[in-house]
């Protein structure tokens, strides 16, 4: 490659809002119901039905706008975006083109070369489409409208990003803001947050933008990073060969690590927007905005600071604990019960993270209760169980959220406090392992570890290792 290129990236991010009902009807937004059980004439586009706006959608959109430093459009409207697709029963999507609810914002990200602001052009409200399932047995597709009408906000950035690292820093920051606001759970895997990447390349130093493509179907940070790398290289290669980049929508296939053109979307770009006649304008007063601003929950930066000050948690640990709202929630709820922030932090940063990695689950999917973690911490503190038993019990709490007190009782895992029994067992161990005893007495102090282990084994793990250590030293 003789020339130097620069990658220019802007993102369009769709976020499903955490409302109980859909944007224009009182159907449930619950995920995973039987097909078409959360539908009504409005969200299936029946003639004569009329949409009525869910107030909570407007409130969430304003809250996200405020947290991302946007101006709120105090007189805003919906528009119709017209296109035909089987997942869109009205043959139009109710969206916002002319007066989106938020405009001209931006958030700061950390990059290796310092802080950088990524601009947000606009945030608009719209409805989600239904879901198409491709039938395996017949030449047909099946439509489930449960998702049709689920509220979305689309956050459109300015083309301010220059690398995959910047993109991920921006997405992660945005995701945390929205999660902390409670406006969405933002799960990339399940599609409650969908990131579309608009990317073009240009010669370094050029002021003109190159032709951009839009990449869809990016379900993880890894996929986003890989897709950006691949698309950048594909475009540079075309330019180097003297060919042109075609403006198109492409779909990323993460298994094949390649993308392909979605031709079906090609001539659908003339959406013939017009003002939505079935919905009246929204007027947002200063009072309403202030009210939402006042109710804004503690965001990540504030939480980070508070954890360090109030709980004396080191910076690194506090960053990890606040890296997901779910983890921060568990941390706070557990600490409120047992009042041992350092211990709670250790369990979350150690065993919880380890098991999450092992099971391949995201923080949002954690299902154990703070009550049970607090009980486990208390059991260890009381000296009722030792650390290795605690780890075993935690695995079961992690998976099945059992009550550790009951479990330890039922399985007889409590430390045996009977000193007589312990001394008797240790004497047996000493007798059975003359070699180690000799080593220890001869100065090999490490040999005691083996003897402790043997005693622990005989006690089936139900002993306090420091107590074994003490008695052993006395007896030797």
């Amino acid at each position, binding site marked *: 490659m003789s020339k130097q290129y620069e990658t220019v990236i802007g993102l369009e991010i769709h976020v499903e809002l955490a409302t*109980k009902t859909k944007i224009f009807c009182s159907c449930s937004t619950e995920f995973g119901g039987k097909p078409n059980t959360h539908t009504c004439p409005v969200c299936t586009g029946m003639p004569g039905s009329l949409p009525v706006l869910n107030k909570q959608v407007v409130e969430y959109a304003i809250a996200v706008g405020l947290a991302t430093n946007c101006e709120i459009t105090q007189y805003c409207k919906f528009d119709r975006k017209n296109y035909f697709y089987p997942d869109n029963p009205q043959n139009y999507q109710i969206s916002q083109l002319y007066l989106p609810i938020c405009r001209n914002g931006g958030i700061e990200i950390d990059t290796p070369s310092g802080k950088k602001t990524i601009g947000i052009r606009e945030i608009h409200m719209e409805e989600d489409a239904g879901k198409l399932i491709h039938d395996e047995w017949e030449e*047909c597709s099946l439509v489930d409208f449960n998702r049709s009408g689920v509220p979305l906000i689309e956050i459109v950035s300015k083309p301010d990003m220059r690398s995959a690292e910047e993109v991920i820093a921006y997405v992660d920051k945005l995701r945390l803001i929205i999660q902390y606001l409670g406006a969405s759970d933002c799960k990339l895997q399940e599609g409650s947050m969908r990131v579309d990447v608009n990317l073009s390349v240009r010669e370094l130093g050029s002021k003109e933008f190159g032709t951009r493509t839009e990449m869809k179907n990016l379900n993880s940070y890894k996929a986003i990073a890989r897709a950006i790398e691949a698309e950048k290289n594909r475009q540079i290669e075309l330019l180097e060969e003297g060919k042109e980049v075609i403006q198109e929508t492409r779909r990323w296939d993460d298994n094949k690590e390649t993308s392909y053109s979605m031709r079906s979307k090609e001539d659908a770009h003339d959406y013939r927007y017009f003002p939505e006649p079935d919905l009246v304008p929204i007027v947002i007063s200063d009072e309403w905005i202030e009210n939402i601003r006042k109710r804004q929950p503690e965001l990540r930066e504030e939480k980070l600071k508070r954890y360090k000050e109030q709980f004396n948690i080191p910076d690194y640990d506090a960053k990890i604990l606040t890296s997901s709202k779910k983890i921060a929630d568990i941390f706070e709820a557990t600490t409120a019960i047992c009042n041992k922030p350092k211990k709670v932090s250790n369990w979350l940063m150690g065993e919880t993270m380890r098991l999450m990695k092992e099971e391949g689950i995201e923080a949002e999917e954690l299902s154990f209760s703070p009550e049970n973690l607090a009980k486990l911490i208390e059991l260890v503190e009381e000296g009722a169980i030792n650390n290795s038993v605690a780890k075993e019990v935690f695995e079961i709490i992690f998976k099945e959220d059992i009550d550790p007190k009951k479990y330890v009782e039922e399985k007889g895992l409590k430390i045996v406090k009977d000193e007589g029994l312990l001394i008797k067992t240790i004497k047996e161990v000493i007798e059975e392992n003359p070699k180690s005893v000799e080593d220890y007495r001869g100065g090999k102090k490490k040999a005691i570890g083996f003897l402790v282990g043997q005693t622990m084994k005989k006690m089936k793990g139900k002993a306090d290792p420091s107590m074994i250590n003490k008695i052993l030293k006395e007896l030797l």
Partner: protein
Amino acid sequence: MSQVISDELMEYIANLAKLELSEKEKEQAKKDMERMLSYIDKLNELDTEGIEPLSHIFSVNNVFREDVVTNGDDSENILSNAPERKDEAFKVPKTVE
């Protein structure tokens, strides 16, 4: 100034609307649209300087619903509207992305 709808434009608009028109229908549609455009031209003669565009004729705003689920499972009724149905879903011709 009256506009003329070209054959290409007619074809394009029909395609966007997913309509298959016969030659006769196309000619008729062209005439209708030309009439509509000349009516718009007539409206454009008015001086609308400084007047905000109006999308609703009622001076009503902020009509909201509270976020409470009141609709239950009405899938049998909803699915009875399906031109074709398979199990619990609407059945449509195969679509590939």
